[in-house]
């Protein structure tokens, strides 16, 4: 440990971070947050009066934000210093603690804005139809808009308190949308679980912010990044680990991953937007944004890489054992974000790779979730892939677009995952020591497992024999409003990878402080070798899944070995949480309630009874006769007067 820490201190601090003031068109960047927020407020306040048109207002608000986001993007491209900030007002100003209610619009924020509003717009559009028969559709769009506003604040804040503001805001929106169908106990419980596990992470993030203020006297990004070099390695490590805890909570990474699959209780568009494409990647954003902190300590980076590698494998193993189409996708999200953590943990140029994968994943995962929703739409809201099969003939558009998503996630050339995931694997092999084999190996293994479980999911849903329940006779393709977003996202899954991989890293280099000084290491495997190996492993996974499931699968649970049983039970992580936190917690609260009533209060009442000369007299006191209180007040008053007289007379002097 000791030698690692000293090594870390020797690392070069990042170059000076300086933000220019936002003016001209970019002075309106606050509109990005304000428009969806206003729309949410209108939808909530107008109530039923907005039921007829409320969803269109919701769509329009996000559409407008997207258009604005695009124009801001092009405006930013023409600037010399591509990091502009806008102070709106003094949020907190107490003593030396000053927090700006301010926004920062830079290349990193800009790509997030485009992802959130672009993919968000398509999913909003899709939801108009998906939620058409739900009486709570207006409320749904209100929460959805609230989410977009909070998420944009999260990525646009110019300090850690603003980030925390948006961070908890998206947590609220996520809670509201997971438990959207509140009358379902499972949904209400899942929402609560998500919020609570997130709050554990949030507490970590909060303490990290306290450390910043205590050591650096500020929470503004530029000031923190410029002075982080003056901190001791231990402080950086502790602060970074706490930030990582926050990131793990929001992004469903080990050890706070358990809430994310349960979050699938929410409507499918929610799963697509919040629990796949955007909110759950906020942890990656946090680490990328804080990279001057993470780059300053190699132990810290090692922890991030380890969390990423471990989580990507956990997600794969559990995803392979699930039969619920949305849960498989949820675990695949956990796993893919593991790849992103791996990327941001590697640091240097891999930061940009992680962001590229994040964007590509936003497209193909949103695509597949909406595809799953389309399948459910046609199959009476069923989710069990053992009871699907042969749907390619009935839902051509859903099938083809889902296929694009499947090929993208497994990293098949030329789909987007190939361009975004494979470079991360290669970077994992380029750490320069034995850990290259460890993390590179995990990433390659994950690629093979991903190919396996995603092929299983794809094949069991769209091909093979029909294994439908009896009440389904003719599944239908979804209406235009749902298929158009699918087609657009499908195109994104196909084409976005190459475009992103070639343009985004360059674009991101203009982000002040991103990347930092990179040390060159020799890769233990050449890039070509890594590409060949990962494609081979992927093909192997696909073939194995196809071979096992080409004729469908049993429609009821089958006995399984130790590994599969464990995977079905989420590797016992839920059981662990229940046994270690939930049950003792409930016992503790019960014990304390007993203690408080009998112990502390009993002591008080006993004392009162003792002074009053037994419980009989206490009971008489409680008859509520005014005169007894009058007597006690009178006694008190007499005591006062007597005391004063005593003083006057000089007895106490």
């Amino acid at each position, binding site marked *: 440990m000791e030698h690692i820490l000293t090594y870390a201190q020797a690392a070069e601090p990042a170059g000076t971070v300086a933000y220019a003031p936002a003016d001209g068109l970019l002075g309106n960047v606050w509109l990005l947050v304000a428009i969806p927020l206003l729309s949410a407020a209108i939808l909530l306040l107008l109530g039923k009066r907005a039921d007829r048109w409320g969803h269109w207002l919701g769509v329009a608000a996000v559409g407008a934000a997207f258009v604005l986001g695009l124009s801001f993007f092009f405006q930013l491209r023409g600037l010399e210093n591509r990091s502009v900030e806008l102070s709106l007002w003094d949020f907190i100003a107490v003593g030396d603690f000053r927090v700006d209610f301010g926004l920062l619009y830079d290349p990193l924020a800009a790509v997030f804005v485009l992802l959130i509003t672009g993919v968000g717009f398509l999913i909003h559009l899709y939801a108009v139809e998906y939620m058409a028969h739900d009486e709570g559709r207006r409320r749904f769009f209100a929460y959805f808009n609230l989410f977009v506003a909070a998420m944009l604040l999260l990525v646009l804040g110019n300090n850690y308190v603003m980030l925390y503001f948006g961070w908890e805001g998206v947590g609220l929106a996520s809670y509201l949308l997971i438990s959207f169908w509140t009358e379902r106990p499972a949904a209400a419980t899942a929402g609560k679980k998500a919020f609570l596990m997130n709050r554990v992470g949030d507490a970590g993030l909060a303490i990290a912010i306290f450390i910043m203020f205590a050591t650096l006297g500020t929470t503004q990004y530029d000031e923190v990044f410029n002075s982080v070099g003056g901190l001791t390695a231990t402080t950086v490590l502790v602060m970074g680990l706490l930030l990582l805890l926050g990131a793990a909570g929001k992004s469903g990474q080990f050890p706070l991953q358990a809430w994310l699959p349960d979050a699938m209780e929410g409507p499918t568009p929610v799963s697509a937007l919040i629990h796949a494409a955007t909110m759950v990647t906020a942890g990656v954003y946090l680490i990328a944004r804080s990279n001057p902190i993470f780059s300053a300590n190699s132990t810290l980076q090692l922890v991030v890489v380890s969390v990423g590698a471990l989580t990507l494998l956990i997600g794969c193993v559990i995803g392979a054992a699930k039969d619920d189409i949305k849960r498989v996708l949820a675990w695949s999200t956990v796993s893919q974000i593991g790849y992103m953590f791996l990327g941001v943990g590697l640091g240097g140029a891999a930061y940009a790779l992680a962001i590229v994968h994040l964007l590509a994943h936003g497209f193909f995962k949103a695509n597949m979730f909406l595809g799953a929703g389309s399948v459910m739409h046609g199959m009476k809201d069923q989710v069990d892939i053992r009871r699907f099969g042969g749907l390619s003939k009935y839902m051509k558009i859903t099938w083809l677009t889902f296929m694009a998503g499947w090929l993208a996630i497994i990293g098949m050339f030329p789909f987007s995952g190939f361009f975004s995931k494979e470079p991360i694997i290669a970077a994992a092999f380029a750490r320069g020591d034995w850990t290259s084999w460890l993390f590179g190996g995990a990433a390659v293994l994950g690629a093979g497992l991903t190919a396996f479980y995603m092929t299983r999911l794809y094949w069991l849903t769209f091909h093979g024999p029909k294994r439908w329940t009896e009440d389904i006779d003719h599944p239908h393709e979804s209406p235009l409003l749902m298929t158009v977003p699918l087609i657009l996202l499908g195109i994104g899954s196909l084409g976005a990878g190459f475009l992103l991989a070639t343009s985004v890293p360059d674009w991101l280099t203009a982000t002040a402080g991103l990347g930092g000084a990179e040390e060159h290491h020799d890769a233990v495997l050449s890039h070509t070798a890594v590409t060949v190996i990962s494609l081979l492993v992927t093909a192997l996974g696909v073939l194995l899944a196809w071979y096992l499931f080409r004729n469908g699968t049993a429609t009821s649970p089958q006995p399984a070995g130790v590994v599969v049983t464990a995977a079905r039970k989420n590797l016992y992580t839920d059981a662990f949480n229940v046994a270690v936190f939930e049950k003792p917690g409930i016992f503790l609260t019960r014990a304390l309630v007993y203690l408080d009533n009998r112990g502390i209060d009993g002591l008080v009442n006993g004392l009162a009874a003792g002074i009053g000369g037994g419980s009989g007299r206490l009971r008489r006191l409680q008859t509520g006769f005014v005169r007894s209180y009058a007597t006690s007040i009178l006694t008190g008053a007499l*005591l006062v007067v007597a005391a004063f007289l005593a003083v006057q007379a000089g007895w106490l002097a």
Partner: protein
Amino acid sequence: MSNFPFLSVLTVAPLVGALVVVLLPRSRPVLAKQVALGWSLLVLALSVAMWVTFQVDGDRFQFRESYPWIPNWGVNFTFAADGIALVMLMLIAILVPLVILASWHDAETSKRSVPVYFALLLVLETTMIGVFAAADIFLFYVFFEVMLVPMYFLIGSYGGHQRQYAAVKFFLYSLVGGLFMLAAVIGLWVVGGKTFDWVALSQVDITTGTERWLFLGFFVAFAIKAPFFPFHTWLPDAGGAAPAGAAALLVGVLDKVGTFGILRYCLPLFPEAAKWFAPYALALGVIGIIYAALLAVGQNDLKRLVSYTSIAHFGFIGVGIFAFTTQAGTGAVLYMLNHGLATGLLFLVVGMLVARRGSALISDFGGAGKLVPVLAGVLFFAGLASLALPGTAPFVSEFLVLIGTFTVNKPVAVIATLGIILAAAYVLWMVQRTTQGTLNPALTEIEGMRKDLNLREKVVVAPLIVLILVLGFYPKPVTDVINPAVQATMTDIGRTDPAPTVGGVQEASR
């Protein structure tokens, strides 16, 4: 306008209103309510005028008035307000009209006089204003004790289940605390040269031993009032039995007298003792945060649950006060205001729910959101404010308390931060068990549960929601008022904020 005797007029005005209300014929209950409401709105208008007149960068104490009362003993009717008192006076003026409006039908279910109920609320307002406006320690003590009387009758005569037990417990508990304070007041008068004037007493040098005893006398009274762990057991009983409106005032304002008293009396008058006792007080605060939050999770009675959340919040305030930093102190005072708004709202909306159901037991609810969606929404919002979600006012105060404490005492701040997880647990579980999940069939058969918030109730909750949101995004107008008073208190006890451990940050970047 600045020469207008705001504080004495504000103190007396509600009392006059109470006399008018109580003289109205018992057969005209509606008129009594209207007069009470109108009167409290006048007090609000006057308070707003005072807020506007207050000069943020002016003297520490403003609006000072002094009239002789008992010259032999040096007792005067002295009033003055610093930023802390001003904020609390504003909170009282805002809450009382809302409570009167919220309690519109509360007194009807009891067999007691309706006008008297509203008169009692106005009497309570007089005593509450007096206790925050007093700048003479004897006057403060008198208001401190007299305040118990109207609240005693509000709980004991108009309360719910076990109201007598709760009222007596509240009264005796506070009275015991008051006796400790009385002893300390007299002691202070003796060592302080036979004066009760705050300014004069704050100049007096007291020997260490005496100072600690006097501090303790005041502190016990205030710790019972607040209440801090382990003096808290009266609050769940009182909060559970009191009518919702009175409960909102009880936890929203009355309990703040405890924390206000510590800030106004314990710290400036006994600075050395305050520093000596600070570790113990911090420990009580942090235990309270965790302990009361765990107890709140385990409650099956809505009003008791809210009472326990309050105890946890008072733990935060206590920690903020005894951390002795600008951020923590300002955060604590802001917390006193925000807690009054948020928990006031929570108590009022819980009252609306309980009034409909005829029961405060959580297990008697279930799925109520289906029947009363707006009410459930407001309950949820109040819960969010209670768990200090960013965007609601309590976030700013809680964050200030924690960050200010962290700079001087890391373990306390870190343990207190765990309280935010527990806060999420008690709020969300309460919301889940009452308004979410499958609809309890018993609810559909109850007439009241089919009616969502009416206009009167919306008018009650709307101002609080707006204030909580506005102060959640822009707390500066209030922190600017509080800050100088807190800094003056810091000077009194001779503490300054620690500098960041890595110096020269600002120069390097800006």
